[in-house]
């Protein structure tokens, strides 16, 4: 168990001389505290698996350092690092029994036999594998195999962190829920640092207490699910988290006013020192935009369709080129296809070149 620090860490498959834009993992400095449940969230190809493999030592970073409890372990091989990892596709040693599979990481490290037996029994119990411990690990269902893989990751009590690389991809949706809540329970019970890579926001938001969002090789924000939702630090986070994602509108912002399509929207804070020449946008979640009957003074939009999600309805509307989703109250219809949009000023954020700008009170 340890605190993990990444110091100016970066990786390029093409070597350090390659232009930084091509780095698979752009320089990042951050800290993972001991015992935390983290999720690395991002679309495919955003560098999250690279970051994970750098931490576990499968990839040696081309730049920067990794510290476990202030100790530099960057040059150490995977075996020497105190780390466990579970992969996307289950890995089973099929000449062994399920129990031997679980014991394998301990046996390789010379843990005494009674200790191994105790650990294997405990993990077997936690993962409901008890009745199968003495059975050959062949011809099992995908979820049983992945449970064994998870078990091998969790069986060592002294690991600095357990890394999960999209471990539930191959599992049926129904069992996914079960396994995920199982993992969450295991996290509480075993007090291990867990880092969970996924491209599924539901998975990330339900599993983790800190979600790290990656985009294009960069860590764009790290925070609690609520923070990511309420105050996305990057337009990508706003767009990627939440369903539907945040509305991003090109705007001219001056003082406490944003001008969209010639219409003025009031802001709660004042933005006087925006960087000159930057691309300015405002972002607001669909939950904080109301579609109402068009009246003078409101931004008018053309309605395209209404999505009924059951507990809530979203109107998909268009203002000039920009598409917006807005909350449509029950029974809302539009006679001529025009709607007015009512923004909640407290939840409008201003972005300069995709990055959040804090306004003055």
């Amino acid at each position, binding site marked *: 168990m340890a605190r993990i620090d990444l110091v100016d860490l970066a990786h390029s498959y093409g070597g350090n001389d390659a232009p930084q834009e091509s780095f698979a993992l752009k320089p990042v400095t951050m800290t993972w505290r001991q015992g935390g449940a983290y999720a690395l969230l991002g679309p495919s190809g955003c560098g999250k698996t690279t970051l994970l493999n750098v931490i*576990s*030592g*499968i990839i040696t970073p081309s730049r920067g350092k990794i510290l476990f409890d202030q100790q530099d372990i960057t040059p150490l*091989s*995977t*075996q020497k690092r105190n*780390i*466990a*990892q579970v*992969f*996307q*596709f289950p*890995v089973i*040693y*099929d*000449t*062994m*029994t*399920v129990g031997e599979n679980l014991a*394998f*990481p301990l046996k*390789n*490290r010379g843990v005494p036999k009674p200790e191994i037996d105790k650990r294997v029994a405990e993990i077997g119990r936690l993962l*409901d*594998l008890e*009745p*199968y411990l*003495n*059975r*050959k690990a*062949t*011809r*099992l*269902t*995908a*979820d*049983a195999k992945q*449970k064994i*893989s998870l078990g*091998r*990751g969790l069986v060592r009590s002294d690991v600095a962190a357990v890394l999960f690389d999209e471990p539930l991809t191959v599992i049926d949706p129904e*069992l996914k829920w079960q396994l995920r809540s199982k993992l969450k329970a295991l996290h509480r019970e075993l007090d291990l640092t867990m880092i969970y890579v996924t491209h599924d926001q539901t998975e990330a938001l339900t599993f983790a207490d800190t979600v790290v969002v990656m985009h294009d090789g960069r860590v764009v924000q790290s925070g609690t699910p609520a923070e990511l939702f309420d105050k996305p630090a990057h337009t990508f986070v706003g767009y990627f988290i939440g369903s539907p994602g945040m509305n991003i509108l090109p705007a001219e912002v001056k003082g406490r006013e944003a001008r969209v399509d010639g219409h003025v929207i009031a802001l709660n804070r004042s933005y006087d020192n925006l960087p000159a020449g930057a691309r300015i946008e405002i972002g607001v979640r669909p939950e904080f935009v109301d579609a109402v009957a068009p009246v003078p003074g409101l931004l008018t939009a053309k309605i395209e369709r209404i999505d009924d999600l059951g507990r809530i309805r979203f109107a998909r509307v268009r203002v000039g080129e920009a598409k917006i989703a807005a909350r449509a109250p029950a029974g809302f219809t539009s006679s001529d296809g025009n709607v007015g949009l009512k923004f909640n000023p407290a939840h409008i954020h201003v972005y300069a070149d995709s990055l959040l700008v804090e306004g003055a009170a």
Partner: protein
Amino acid sequence: MDKTVNQKAWFLVLPVFLVVAFSAVLPLMTVVNYSMQDTFGNNQFFWNGVGWFKELLDPSTDLGGRFLASLGRNLFFSLVILAIEVPLGIVVALSMPRQGWPVAACLVTLALPLLIPWNVVGTIWQIFGRPDIGLLGYVLNHVGLDYNYVSNDIDAWVTVIVMDVWHWTSLVALLCYAGLKSIPDAYYQAAQIDGASRWAVFKAIQLPKMNRVLLIAVLLRFMDSFMIYTEPFVVTGGGPGNSTTFVSIELVKIALGQFDLGKAAALSLVYNLIILIVCWIFYTVMTNAGVERKVQTESKPAVEPKPSAGLKPVPALKPKEGVA
């Protein structure tokens, strides 16, 4: 549902039947025919029943003695060949590079011996090992080793075995390499994470994943080495004495040297049968070894239909209602 019966369909099988008949069955029946009779030339035949077979399997007769002795030599040879080539092939495959140009270089180099015709291999080693002009023989004798495959039994055996190892280990290595390449990287990464030693990786991942190709390698190498003829014939001619006379060499001696067609025919039939039986046993044992293990450890209800012991290699991969 009733199936339409149409006996004309048999005509469709006819061409294949004829081809097989002329290429395999008729020649085989000729051999069977010869094995039951004795001939002194001039197309005169005398019925001998199973006489040749009796003689062949009776060690006290000349024919039987020669056959059983060469059979013993042949089995020993195959055993030694397998014991050397299979582990060596695995080691070579494990130490081959995994990517980049060295892969191509290795593959080409390994494939070279496989492309050389048998009698050329024999000639190469025949000259290579000669004490007067051969590089190997000359050097060995000059460093003080008394090496002469023409006069010394052990030297002859060593030469023949080393020659075969040189010629065929590549085959095993290439097969194993193919098996190794098919293992996903995730297995190695997981093993690294699990802190597995090199030996543990080999035992837990590589060997189990290679067992299919190893089965093929063992079968091929057994059949080939059991039928070996050309190379030892070119190098030693079966000598010194009869020490490297394998069954095929003995067969040619009887058939063409002594022109004992009846004895030779009986011998070839028995020879053929032995190869078939041994291969079948190998195959059944090696494919069932895995299946047996699985069936034993299957949870109590024995509803699992046990794969029949015949030539059905595929272990049922159907997902079982498992641990969940």
